[in-house]
């Protein structure tokens, strides 16, 4: 597992340096606001005055577009009334009624704007879609996210949080590369034996507790809690010299282990029964 993680990290280091972006607009570049035709009638700004603006360029007859809009509808709800503006943009080459129906079925409430003659599309250089642009209060492109099937909602939410200054870039990295979710680390089997042994000891069965501790140590010889448990189980059986050795071994591994220290004091000077 460590080798795998190391190789993945190595790959990460080899990954291209350029931040994904539109073909003609990089992250950090200023984006001019402009009015676009609103599907509801009249015109509406692409960005407007908001702490952050989020626009999604989508297409009709696209499963990915529907999925992206659905995910964004949750983010939109999270930020309702918090100064973040969401708009959906579709080309006038797409069927407007179909676009309206798609947006409605996604659950998103954001206004629908129409990109006439692909003017915005061409200016930005849209190559992947559905795609989201997050623009900060200074009207700079703060983030670019094309749709992904796994993690889209969480990552877009994180990008908005970064644009608003709510989370740091380092915290965003944890969103982009979360810790693996494996059940149990290398010590888990030994910990289980110790936990079982503690229950046995609590129920007065020191012999079984000793066996559990020894099974734990067979799995992880340097697991201090297993040495402590062994010491306690042996002490309970009146085998103090052996218990002392177990507590001393625990203290050798974890010098400040309070339970081992207490156990050692309890056995001090005592001989076998």
């Amino acid at each position, binding site marked *: 597992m460590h080798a*795998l993680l190391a*190789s*993945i990290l*190595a*790959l990460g280091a*080899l*990954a*291209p340096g350029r931040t*994904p972006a539109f*073909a003609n607009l990089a992250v950090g570049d200023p984006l001019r606001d402009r009015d676009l035709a609103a599907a509801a009638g009249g015109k509406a700004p692409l960005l407007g005055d908001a702490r952050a603006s989020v626009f999604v360029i989508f*297409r009709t007859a*696209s*499963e*990915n577009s529907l999925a992206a809009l659905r995910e964004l509808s949750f983010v939109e709800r999270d930020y309702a009334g918090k100064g973040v503006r969401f708009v959906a943009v579709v080309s006038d*080459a797409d069927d407007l009624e179909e676009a309206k129906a798609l947006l409605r079925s996604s659950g998103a409430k954001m206004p629908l704007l129409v990109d006439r*003659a*692909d*003017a915005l*599309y*061409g200016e930005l*250089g*849209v*190559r*992947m*879609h559905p795609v989201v642009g997050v623009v900060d209060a200074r009207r700079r492109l703060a983030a670019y996210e*094309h*749709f*992904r*099937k*796994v*993690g889209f*909602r*969480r990552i877009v939410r994180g990008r908005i949080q970064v644009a608003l200054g709510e989370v740091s870039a380092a915290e965003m990295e944890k969103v982009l*590369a*979360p*810790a*693996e*979710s*494996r*059940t*149990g*680390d290398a010590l*888990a089997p030994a*910990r*289980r*034996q110790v*936990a*079982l042994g503690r*229950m*046995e000891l609590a*129920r007065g*069965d020191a012999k*079984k507790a000793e066996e*559990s501790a020894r099974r734990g140590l067979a799995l992880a010889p340097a697991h201090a809690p297993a040495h402590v448990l062994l010491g306690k189980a042996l002490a309970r059986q009146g085998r103090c010299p052996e218990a002392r050795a177990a507590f001393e071994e625990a203290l050798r591994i974890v010098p400040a282990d309070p339970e081992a220290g207490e156990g050692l004091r309890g056995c001090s000077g005592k001989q076998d029964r």
Partner: protein
Amino acid sequence: MHAAYETGDCALCHVRNDPKNPGKPSGPVNELCFGCHDEVRDLLKREVVHWAAADACTNCHNPHGSKQPKLLVDETVALCTSCHSDVGEHVASARVKHGAVTTGAKCANCHNPHGSSVEKLLVAYPFDLCLGCHSKEGMRSADGRSLANMKEWLAQNPDWHAPIKAKDCSACHRPHGSANFRLLVATYPEKFYAPYATETYRLCFGCHNERAFRAPETTTLTNFRNGAKNLHFVHVNKEDRGRTCRACHEVHASKQSHHIREGVPYGPKGWILRLNYVKTARGGSCAKTCHETRSYDNQTVVAHPAK
């Protein structure tokens, strides 16, 4: 057999230490389990939680003993698909199978059935999971095809396709099985040449705009144009020998920008015909390749002699 059961001390988990009448569990089931299996408690605190695990460990595990690994109440795929029947049907009916579903830990190769930081209970993002296996030589698909060492390929080729940068192998591949070759999520021509039809490129058009390939002229949909002449249209729109995307692009990663491949296999011995692509600020050129040297400029028109 479960270690706790093996002790013969029923009261470790039940109200009585009487094998014939142990009574009910001595506390909430999951709390009893977490007494030893503390790592599962931590997993159930993550962003994505499996309902079945949060409800009761005994939904999936037999706390006394089982013939299945991990004390599961049934074989892994059968157990998971007893609820996730749509996935079960998909796996069973898929023309192209994925070995990861039926070997090793099966569903648990990629999913953590307790909890996860990634949606769909994935152990990690797809890229990290996929490279866990697709990082060695000699791998073969379920139908015997040789599979690339993707880790090595990506290490050698720095221009990665956007879904790979996004760690989203599932943008193009369906990990439970597919009707399309290479577990692709939608149609893509299997052969190097194919007549152009939107239907045959559903895979690519999931993200890319099909209008960028069927419009003879454009100034907005692609920068691969000579003036307004759409060169994607020119390459793919041929009745007999329409160039598929792979004719010019490496779908995973390349050394050159725009995922342009260095060369294409040519002839029965697979001799590599180099594209000699050169990128410029407003266009580029390919030299002495499938055609004579051709340049393009997406702002002004580069004139070429008539054939």
